């Protein structure tokens, strides 16, 4: 499988985009950062909507821009989902879907049918865009981008303009895209929840520069970086729902290296979900703590330590099997327990948040 190489330098009044990235050629890459961090500009450079004079872009082996060549947008095999959707008001939903499709030789009716089915918009095809809700519009916008059978899908904050209810309506479709399509998806977002839920790979940006570029789960567990998805530091785990205990309404979530019990989320056994374990919900003990109200106790080994934002606190990363958790301790507790890298500890996990 190929890779995406993207190098751009773009000078704007009061803003400079300067990035040099290698991204995976499949899966969801989140471009994360505050507004003004340059994430949308980067996406627009990739689409050719901004013309960075100095730059290089290749997508899975196909060069779209280098020193001498610059392909205009309409010659790049991409799907682009805009924040405010941009359905053509003079065309019906179906005509909107056809617009790109009929201009691409390699697109087939099956691409369109697949996109329509994937996004659940069969019943909307004959409507006018003006008659759709915000969530429906966004689904049509995504289907329209997919119908051109692109080599890469670029999404610019597709949920930002929607309220919470609409977001919940769209997210399952995005997860389906992720599972069922074999193409790289670049997802611009400033929402920690969306990123934690959808992304495999994380690029965090600030003031036009890349702060970090790496696999999501590894990157979030890094302690030396000021990456906070949301209010708190924490780790993300990909888990499988292993067992449901109907007596106690609990479910066991299995991950590489252990398992955690949590309230039964009502999902089928075998479901794959992503959970977030916040650093403040993990405590450490040097010996097995014995009977405790905290029933998730996992053996692990301290793997790294770093200062937290508050001078009294420290972040400790614990390797549990092949996975990592992050715990927040006071510095005094860390010293009294003599916590240091390499040491064996028991991680007590008080709470697990399902990302859905």
């Amino acid at each position, binding site marked *: 499988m190929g890779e995406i190489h993207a190098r751009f330098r773009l000078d704007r009044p009061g803003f400079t985009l300067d990035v040099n990235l290698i991204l995976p050629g499949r899966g969801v890459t989140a471009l994360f950062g505050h507004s003004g961090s340059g994430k949308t500009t980067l996406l627009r450079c990739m*689409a*050719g*909507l901004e013309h960075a004079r100095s730059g290089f872009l290749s997508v899975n082996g196909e060069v779209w821009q280098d020193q001498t060549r610059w392909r*205009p*947008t*309409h*010659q790049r095999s*991409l*799907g*682009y989902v*805009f924040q*405010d959707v*941009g359905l*053509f*008001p*003079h065309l019906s939903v179906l005509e909107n879907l056809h*617009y*790109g499709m009929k*201009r*691409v030789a390699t697109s087939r009716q099956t691409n369109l049918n697949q996109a329509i089915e994937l996004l659940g918009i069969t019943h909307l095809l004959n409507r006018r865009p*003006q008659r759709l809700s915000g969530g429906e519009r966004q689904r049509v916008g995504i289907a*329209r*981008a997919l119908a*051109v059978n692109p080599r890469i899908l670029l999404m610019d904050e597709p949920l930002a303009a929607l309220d919470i209810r609409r977001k919940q309506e769209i997210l399952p479709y995005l997860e389906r895209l992720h599972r069922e399509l074999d193409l790289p998806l670049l997802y611009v977002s400033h929402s920690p929840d969306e990123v934690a839920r959808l992304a495999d790979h994380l690029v965090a940006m600030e003031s036009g520069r890349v702060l970090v570029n790496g696999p999501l789960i590894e990157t979030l567990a890094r302690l030396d970086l000021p990456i906070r998805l949301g209010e708190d530091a924490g780790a993300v785990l990909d888990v499988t729902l292993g067992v449901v205990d109907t007596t106690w309404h609990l479910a066991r979530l299995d991950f590489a290296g252990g398992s955690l019990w949590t309230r039964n989320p009502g999902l089928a056994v075998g479901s794959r979900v992503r959970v977030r374990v916040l650093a403040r919900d993990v405590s450490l003990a040097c010996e097995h703590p014995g009977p405790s109200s905290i029933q998730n106790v996992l053996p692990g080994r301290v793997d790294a330590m770093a200062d937290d934002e508050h001078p009294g606190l420290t972040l400790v990363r614990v390797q549990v099997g092949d996975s990592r958790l992050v715990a927040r301790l006071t510095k005094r507790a860390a010293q009294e327990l003599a916590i240091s890298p390499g040491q064996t500890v028991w991680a007590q996990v008080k709470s697990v948040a399902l990302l859905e």
Partner: protein
Amino acid sequence: MLLSSDDLAALWLTVRLAFLVTLILLLIGTPIAWWLARTGSRWKGSVSAVVALPLVLPPSVLGFYLLLAMGPSGWVGQLSQALGIGLLPFSFWGLVVASVLYSLPFMVQPLQTAFEAIGDWPLEVAATLRASPLDAFFTVAVPMARPGFLTACVMTFAHTIGEFGVVLMIGGNLPGVTRVVSVQIYDHVEAMEYAEAHRLAAVMLIFSFLVLLTLHTVRPTSEKG
């Protein structure tokens, strides 16, 4: 019949002139309006001003310059003679050229407003859906600017029908060649034929009212698209 054959000839000539001028301006005015709506060029101001000149210039001034340019020693005149077309003043085609210039702002300004209102996004979306700029212009910008096109064409048509000063300067008053309705009414009044003038004037009044009525009833619904 209420109108004389001379009146009918003048009406027919006027309609032909207005139709041709509208068609030609649609072809010339659209690219100008598109350019004005989308350019960041420092020439934008100057071009806008030139396009708007006929709005403020007395028709006789415009007619005077055109007469000089199209005359035997003017550059347009020499060009038209060299091309074997002959001289344009006091011919139907001279009238067409003059009217095109005179009605230019009525085509360009509504179109420019319509194109500006569309914004960049539909063209960016079209580009991400593989439409070349020209393709996007015809399949996205033009349909989205349809109310603007309607306004521009109706305004141009109506304005051409109503012009008088330029026509008199360039076309003179040749029956069936350059004698349009406005000149015909003038002739009737000069000859004290008030009844005839009344009838023709009434036709014009009703026509103008209907045009504006159509414009105001059609526009709001088509803008919602």
